């Protein structure tokens, strides 16, 4: 069953959403050992005594992991604790070879931050508070072929011990769309700052969503439905869908049972993407008794205010700041700045080079959005793989600005350069595009006026727009002419009589 789409205005409830996001930090090695974190290696090839949890093995903290986690926390406007320690979270699972996960419990290294999400079209603007950000190790991978019946589960421990940043938000989001937009903003931020590649296909970013509803009662009080944690959501689109589904499901359940928050322990439901539904997961009562206690194999970490200041200074601008700066620097609209910044740091750098070379940020932005980005979307790949360099596109834009040819002719050149791989100059020569001289233009216009007495009469009678009829004919006679110049010259000649 898929939920009937409900328009927000029609919803008799508010969806309350908190997110828990795990991101893999961009380190070369694991959190506590020197094994590689590269994705996609054959099973159990990136393992050592420490990440296998062999008897006698010990963890030693990866400095880069801590620094990246701190950068993430600072970017999320968190307070950095001056003293932090790690704890053991004890539970049995075959992908957790030590029988405990090294995590942070009562003294995470950061807390109390926020990340804003603003819809560029103005649909919403939300400050989402961050409860905490902490640094922990990942578990391994269990693979089970259910179709094959009750065979063994295979365990690959390559991922075990990979550094993760856990980011927990307060329940401040109010719609599935907001949740998705916020996740996009979070991902952009973390990728911008080099904290994580946030590749969801490779498990570098994982999301759990805590969802419940606030339903106004006739007496003005609020009914709150029990909180459900949705797990196993593999894309931001799925997050949006899963929350939307869950909201309707909870509303229907509330209507049927009247169950409210506090009447049952938090339920965990898994998102079944193909079916488009959430399903209740088995949840053992005792499994939440993790018996946390301080990890005796690691020593605490202290962070001074100077270190925090230095990390902040080295961090660079987050996207939210960068959007404003970009809009101001190149005189583009906030919407345009948003589109460009959301494409990531490399594309922004490409744009800024283009804007610098052409001296016109607005035109450069148009070309980025209408031509470069469209082509990238069609072809796939990153801006780094784009076959043209900013200088080549700038060459076309500059020639258009000089009036050598018009924008649509420029687009043809752009497309031909992409298709043939030849240089802009060569393509212009191949297409026979040459700047039309003043004398040549005047001769052409005289010919046109002579051949179109009706249009001349109309213009003389005050209908200047009739001159448009000359442009198509001019293009036929000489495809290199600039339509604006033809129009201008013809009007001048008619006025002159």
């Amino acid at each position, binding site marked *: 069953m898929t939920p009937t789409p409900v328009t927000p205005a029609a919803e008799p409830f508010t969806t309350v959403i908190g997110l828990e996001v795990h991101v893999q930090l961009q380190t070369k090695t694991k959190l506590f050992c020197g094994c590689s974190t590269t994705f996609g290696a054959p099973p159990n090839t990136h393992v050592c005594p420490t990440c296998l949890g062999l*008897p*006698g093995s010990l963890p*030693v903290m990866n400095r880069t992991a801590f620094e990246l986690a701190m950068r993430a926390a600072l970017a999320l406007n968190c307070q950095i604790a001056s003293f932090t320690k790690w704890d053991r979270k004890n539970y049995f699972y075959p992908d957790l070879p030590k*029988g405990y996960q090294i995590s942070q419990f009562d003294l995470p290294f950061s807390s109390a931050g926020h990340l804003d999400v603003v819809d560029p079209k103005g649909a919403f603007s939300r400050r989402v508070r961050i409860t905490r950000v902490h640094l922990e190790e990942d578990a391994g991978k269990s693979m089970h072929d259910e179709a094959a019946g009750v065979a063994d*589960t295979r365990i690959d421990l390559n991922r075990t011990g990979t550094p993760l940043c856990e980011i927990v938000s307060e329940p401040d989001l109010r719609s599935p769309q907001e949740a998705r937009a916020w996740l996009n903003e979070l991902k952009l931020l973390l990728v911008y700052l080099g904290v994580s590649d946030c590749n969801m296909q490779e498990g570098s970013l994982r999301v759990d969503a805590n969802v419940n509803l606030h339903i106004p009662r006739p007496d003005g009080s609020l009914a709150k439905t029990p909180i459900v944690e949705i797990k196993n959501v593999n894309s931001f689109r799925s997050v949006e869908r899963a929350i939307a589904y869950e909201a309707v499901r909870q509303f229907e359940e509330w209507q049927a049972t009247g169950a409210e928050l506090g009447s049952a322990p938090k339920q965990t439901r898994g998102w079944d993407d193909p079916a488009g539904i959430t399903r209740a997961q088995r949840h053992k009562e005792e499994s939440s008794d993790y018996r946390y206690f301080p990890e*005796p*194999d690691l020593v605490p970490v202290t962070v001074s205010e100077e270190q925090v200041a230095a990390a902040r200074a080295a961090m660079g601008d987050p996207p939210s700041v960068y959007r404003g700066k970009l809009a101001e620097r190149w005189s583009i609209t906030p919407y345009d700045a948003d589109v460009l910044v959301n494409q990531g740091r490399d594309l922004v750098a490409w744009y800024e080079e283009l804007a610098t070379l052409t001296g016109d940020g607005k035109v450069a932005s148009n070309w980025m959005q209408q031509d470069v980005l469209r082509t990238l979307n069609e072809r796939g790949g990153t801006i780094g793989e784009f076959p043209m360099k900013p200088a080549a596109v700038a060459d076309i834009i500059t020639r258009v600005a000089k009036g050598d040819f018009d924008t649509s002719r420029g687009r043809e050149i752009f497309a031909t350069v992409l298709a043939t791989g030849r240089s802009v100059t060569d393509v212009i020569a191949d297409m026979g595009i040459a700047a039309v001289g003043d004398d040549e233009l005047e001769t052409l216009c005289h010919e046109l006026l002579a051949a179109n007495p009706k249009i001349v009469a109309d213009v003389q009678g005050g209908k200047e727009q009739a001159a448009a009829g000359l442009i198509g004919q001019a293009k036929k006679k000489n495809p290199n002419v600039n339509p604006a110049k033809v129009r201008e010259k013809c009007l001048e000649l008619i006025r002159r009589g």
Partner: protein
Amino acid sequence: MQLSERSATEIVSAVRAGDISAVECVTAFLDRIELLDGKVNAFLAVNREQTLAQAADIDARRAAGKPIGPLAGLPVAVKDALCTTDFPTTCASKMLAGYRPPYDADVVARLRRADAVIVGKTNMDEFAMGGSNENSAFGPVHNPWDLSRAPGGSSGGSAACVAADMAPVAIGSDTGGSIRQPAGLCGITGFKPTYGRVSRRGLVAFASSLDQIGPMARSAADCALIMEAIAGHDPGDATSLTTTVPSYSQLLDEPLAGLRIGRVTEHYGPGLDPEVARGVDEAFAVFKAAGATVHDVELPHAKYGIPTYYLIAPCEASSNLARYDGAHYGARAELGRGTSAEYVGSFESPLMEMYCRSRAEGFGPEVKRRIMLGTYALSAGYYEAFYAKALRVRRLIQQDFLKAFEKVDLIAGPVSPTPAFPLGEKTGDPLAMYLVDMYTVGTNLAGIGGISFPCGFTKAGLPIGFQLQGPALAETLLLRSADRFQRLTDWHRRRPPLSV
């Protein structure tokens, strides 16, 4: 003197001088093991061929004029809690029977780099939990002074093999007294260094905030020699200290004049055997004669040491031993077969059955007891009352020591309340067994160092142990004080009357 009776210091210089070969030396001890260990059961693994090959390699290098390490040719027995690539490492547990680690413990690697030869892995209480060595899955160790008695534990095999001259030195580990107590009961010298002085990497963890590896030998001088090889910073152990390691054995000669020794009044309470008390008092007299002064000091929270220890250690152990679950290494119960019908309740899945049965069938009773106790004390609703409470008392105990060390340089007293007790005497009463550690656990809780050595014998001919405890990183002072005592007495030279 027979080769097997020589001290480590003598052996090392004899091999270096070419008076004896490494092969001769190792052979003498291997022969002795072959002769005696049927009675003592100190070893869980010996590999004559492999050990002789390693000794031969050292001889060859020496003959070729190549450099040899500072412990070249010295046979060392290693507690089976330390990982070795060339011997199984079982922690005397069925759970790890036959387990062969893919890496050497840092201490083992250091010994090998010094060209010591590992002659075998020694018996112990399972996962180092016990004070009598009766918790070994592979049978108890017998005290060489009286084979019907326990050698102490948990490093009972290491203590007994040195006492019986089956190895000149052994490596032990001490979580609550597991080096010092068996050393005391077997009449040898056992040294528990400051927490972090010796790397724990490759020591199968019992209680990580308490565990420390140390040497066990016939004398403090031999302990000093071994400490030089095994102590030092290990970047692979985040809790390993970076302080430079002194040349302990070069620093033993300084006299003790002016040394202030604290006599702990709380040690003379109920449970202290009068013969032990007498032996300890005589030891104080020896120190006085050597120029030290003796002062009464108080450790007001000493009596809370055992309850504090028996919360903290089991809590950490319950987590450290979670990895033995039948999934990735070690013993896995054969599912769907055997005895599952006898268990209370039913397993909700084959995975659950694997976990619960592998652990039930792989661990012995004391290990299970401590896992249960630790799991309970950390579980929701009990953490504050038990685990957190114990951590607070731990601080009080540490503060007692810090305060005492403002007045005195070292603290002294008995190692254990009684001499070696008969095998089986305490096996039915876990609490009685726990009390054998009453004088030793404080050292571990405070993270400081301690050394135990023989200071006399009972009428029945059992060794009496004396303990010195020092502030953090007072290794040199502890070794020097014990060495001075041994220059003035010959208790440590007495050999058990083991008939072959």
